[in-house]
């Protein structure tokens, strides 16, 4: 099991009021994403646990792109990865942020 932590400042706070959300499943080729609105201002943290080693660069590229597109300021995001491909990771992250956009 490999772990990876990425801390960034997003452009703005994530929209919505919801305090937490969870999407996806822990399964081969898939992943589970948990989002919590617990950080100050525009800070964003992404914690990744993955079953497949050796893709740090790809993870960094996927997460940077996600933060740029979705501005998830204030969110701590935990990823439990079962070997999902980057397109699935991007999709689940985007789904997670949309879930957070709901009112509380």
């Amino acid at each position, binding site marked *: 099991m490999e772990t990876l932590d990425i801390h960034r400042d997003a452009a703005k706070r994530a929209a919505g009021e919801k305090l937490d959300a969870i999407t996806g499943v822990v399964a081969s080729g898939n992943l589970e994403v948990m989002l919590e609105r617990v950080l100050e201002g525009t800070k964003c943290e992404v914690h990744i646990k993955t079953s*497949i080693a050796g*893709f740090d*660069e*790809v993870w960094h*590229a*996927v997460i940077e*792109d996600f933060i740029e597109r979705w501005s998830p300021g204030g969110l701590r995001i935990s990823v439990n990865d079962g*070997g999902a*491909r*980057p*397109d*699935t990771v991007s*999709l689940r992250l*985007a*789904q997670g942020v*949309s879930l957070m956009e709901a009112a509380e």
Partner: protein
Amino acid sequence: MTDWQTQKHERQIRLDAGGKFAIGKMVAANETTALLESVIRPGDRVCLEGDNQKQADHLAAALVAADKSKVHDLHIVQSGIALPEHLDLFAKGIATKLDFSYSGPQSEAIARALGSGKIQLGAIHTYLELFSRYFMDLTPHVALIAAISADREGNLYTGPNTEDTPTIVEATAFKNGIVIAQVNEVVDRVPRVDIPGDRIDFVIKAPKPFFVEPLFTRDPAQVTETQILMAMLALKGIYAEYRMQRLNHGIGYGTAAIELILPTFGETLGIKGKVATHWALNPHPTLIPAIESGWVRQIHSFGSEVGMDDYMRARPDVYFTGRDGSLRSNRTFCQVAGLYACDMFIGATLQMDLAGNSSTVTADRIPGFGGAPNMGADAHGRRHPSDAWLKAGRQASNGPPSMTRGRKLVVQLLETFGDKMEPSFVEKLGAVEFAEKMKLELVPIMIYGDDVTHVVTEEGIANLLLCRTSAEREQAIRGVAGFTEVGRARDRKQVEVLRQRGIIRRPEDLGINPLDADRHFLAARSIKDLVNWSGGLYHPPAKFRNW
């Protein structure tokens, strides 16, 4: 005096030798190997019918069992290397040379056999090339074919899986060759005559019905959200823009996803009846919902598909059927239709380089070409216009409008990463390394980059027709290559310029939200749903049933 009839005499000698095992044309199954030993000569070109689906498996096993001192150094000229027996022929030394098209299930075994020097490879062909060479320099001396039934005169009923048989028989029978058929049953009267009996020399009732593999059944349950997103991009960004009516789909999940969202997402685009009405296509079960919804006017098929027979029999307005009611397929004619009469080919591939060349060959796997290169190539002999063809031609042209010729749309679907996180976009194709290792004169490219018009990934569509330089093409491809190394090495500024010019289109440029791309768009979400759409006429093979 020149003897102009040597082949005829030779044929008679072989017929007489084989006749010892026959009553009329009928030979008992347990005499098959003896028959083959008596009519086949060392060095013969033999076509052992291995099609995409239908296999002359009894004849294959009988040939493997032949005495090597009598039958050896054969040159096998067949489209499909599908059964282990096909490779056993080479391992045993019965055959030494091979010209073929497709090796799907044996793609790894054939790579090993080539590596060990057991096979002298002529070439890997497309179907049409190999079939054409049957009438030039690769005419079979002996053809070993498969049919459903025969009568005493040798008239054959090939039924829905006619596939390659008429072409093989034509080339062999009319050039003094010997044609031997294995059949599932001998009957008084065949349901229809697919092959006239005077082209058939010997008939054997095989102990078991010939093997047919369901190759084109894609379970909707396996279709992913990414594939649905790509299907939406293709429908809105290509189908709705070019409005092509005549097309061919590949056999992967990407095109299955398109078939499954025609009646849902496609319906919202208002293109039903205007787009994708005429098809060169195997009987894909995933097209049933679109057929039942009135999208499809006509389908001509290369072969059949296990479980689809009753459905097709009940839909003769859509499918080509015989007077007996069952499907008539014909690989050669359907390939020709795909080459000359289709405005679009769309299919998946495994690897693409920066020039848009693609291949499914890797160092340890040679699946061959099958027919994709015939579909996925602009036909330079085409001389009839259509709106879609002309529009594509205009987009690609720098020349005077009066002399603009059309272009076939050749669309490649690639998820940016494949199995085991293998990137689909690469600087150098595995096929190039393979060709170097095997010292091939020609790199086995499935579809050449200069024929490709669009590349669709989950990141967007790259329209290569609109690119004017190779540098633009490269950035257009990098610009949809996602998080692969090739994609990450893009020139971001240039990619943004290409996007402004409409060469690259993102989901948001097409008004598609990736979050909408979920399975509710699939008109059928399981094999069971397909059965229901067919009104119970589709009978999926056991391995696809979970109820």
